[in-house]
């Protein structure tokens, strides 16, 4: 079953001049796959990811995730959809610096409000343990090292048991040792938990070891 179906996507940038970034992109991603999007800088790989993230709504064509059409939906609906089904991991860890690591992980779940705050805290602690950063739970996010922050960010992406985890160069800002830890984590999530993972990367090694690679050249998918 295809979790993501992309049909005939065209995307333009208007600043500084009108420019086509994505050109008739079609792609399908199956549930449980670990997919990498690669390409040179300017090839449109990040643009494609942010379209799939539902945060960029300005495009022509159709994106269906889990059977739901994303085109033409309102901000509140899309925010709710992201909250339920999409977890993000970014190159720069983007934790909220004033909150503790634990609180950062809890926030998306508190927003979802599927469980009580006490249960959410318990689940967040479990995830921090799984990622090996439970010792940092009550430290402020700004005091953690880069590798620790990225693991907290992954825990945050997992807290609502999303359909998809999206990563924008999740290992791009990590040393090779931490990058290997993060990659192994993704691999493990995909194979053991059947988690769908979609990441943009320019790390060839990372891409080679994923289930599927989507390579973009000048806004088109190269075969």
């Amino acid at each position: 079953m295809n979790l993501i179906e992309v049909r005939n996507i065209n995307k333009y940038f208007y600043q500084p001049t009108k420019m086509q970034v994505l050109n008739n992109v079609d792609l399908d991603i199956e549930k449980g796959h670990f997919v990498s999007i690669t390409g040179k800088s300017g090839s449109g790989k990040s643009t494609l990811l942010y379209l799939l993230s539902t945060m960029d709504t300005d495009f022509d064509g159709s994106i269906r995730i889990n059977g739901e059409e994303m085109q033409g939906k309102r901000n509140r609906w899309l925010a709710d959809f992201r909250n339920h089904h999409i977890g993000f991991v970014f190159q720069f860890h983007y934790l909220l610096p004033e909150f503790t690591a634990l609180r950062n992980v809890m926030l998306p779940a508190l927003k979802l409000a599927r469980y009580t705050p006490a249960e959410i805290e318990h689940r967040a602690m479990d995830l921090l343990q799984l990622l090996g950063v439970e010792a940092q739970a009550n430290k402020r996010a700004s005091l953690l090292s880069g590798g620790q922050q990225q693991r907290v960010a992954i825990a945050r992406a997992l807290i609502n048991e999303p359909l998809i985890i999206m990563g924008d160069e999740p290992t791009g800002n990590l040393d090779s040792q931490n990058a290997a830890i993060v990659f192994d984590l993704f691999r493990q999530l995909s194979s053991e938990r059947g988690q769908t993972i979609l990441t943009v990367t320019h790390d060839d090694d990372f891409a080679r070891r994923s289930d599927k690679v989507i390579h973009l050249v000048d806004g088109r998918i190269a075969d």
Partner: protein
Amino acid sequence: MKLITNIKLAATIAFTHMRTRLKQTLIATAGVTFGITVFIFMVSFIQGSNDFVQAVAFEQSPHLRLYNEIQTAPANIIDRTHPGNINLVSHVKPKDILLNLKDGPQVVQALQQDPRVAAVSGAVSTQVFYRLGSSSINGTINGIRFEQENALFNLQAKLVEGSFKELATLPNSLVVGVGLARRLNVKTGDRLEVTTDKGNNFSVKVVGIFKTGLTDIDKQQSYASLHTVQRFLEVPVSYITDIKIKLHDMELAPAMLPELQAKYGVHGSDWKQDNSALLEGDALRKMIVYGVAVTILLVAGFGIFNILTMMIYEKMKDIAILKAMGFSDTDIRWIFLVQALMIGITGALMGLVFGFLAAYGISKMPYKSDVMITLDHLPVSFSAVYYVTGFTFGMLTTTLAGYLPSRKAARVDPITILRG
């Protein structure tokens, strides 16, 4: 239910933001506090002074006055005898009329039966010269029935020395204003001469001295019994020139005036006409207070606006990440609106407390004045209306000051920030 949990979550994020920016938050709160404090303080003080001045003036002013006035006839006789002609009469002179009210004592009795009327007093007032030795000062004498007049103006409380009671028992006795007594250098028991406008002289005895607090009255007015003044004027006992009325509800006065004028065929005025300058002054002073308060609150509002706008620039990344997590535009707006509201509520409440304390403080300050003789402390009003108004003002300004930046925060495009 979902809305409430969303706002609660936004509030906890807002509180974390405020805690990490404690100094800025406190300064913004202090701005609102200061604005509301000044508003409460000024409006209490000014309203207190207004109330005091009004109380002094209104105590001397009846709600309704009925009297006669010398007037030029509106139509002349030649127009009536030769209608249709063009009649020219140059320089018509006003007719000399008796200034008394027709059937005055009966009108007083009739008014006493009126359920709207609290008290009525019929009086004769006339211009006289007070003379002692070579000096002569002009002024007015009010011929009154003490019990009636006292019911209207609480004369007894204004007596400085002597007694009003002797007016009725001792012929040709006067109670004089404190300023008049000082000018004539007389005290209780002294005698002086009174000359009426018809040239008659009477020797009178001062039996008391009163003080109203209004200089204009105190320095030229005196009270005598109704009969004494009627005798001075050589008029019968039915002759009265003024009927003063106190109502249970003073706001009815303007409506009652035309009714009484038509019924008894007399002139009249109500307290609003008599004190129009005073009332206008009150309204203007109140406008000034509100103007100053709104200005201060606007400045405080700009403070909140600035702090939130700066915070939003600092928090662009946080806003983007919250949006990626699934926080909607509305949730983001609440985060910043809650901060503004918290600053507003705290600032406004503290402003009310400090404003009250400041107002209470000056109400205890001793104050002596030659003009307002009955004043010993600064007059301050503690009406709850100003506290409600102040709080509402504060909340309105801060909500507006918070709404604009929070809308800006809600519009932040997460992609431009997350892509770097």
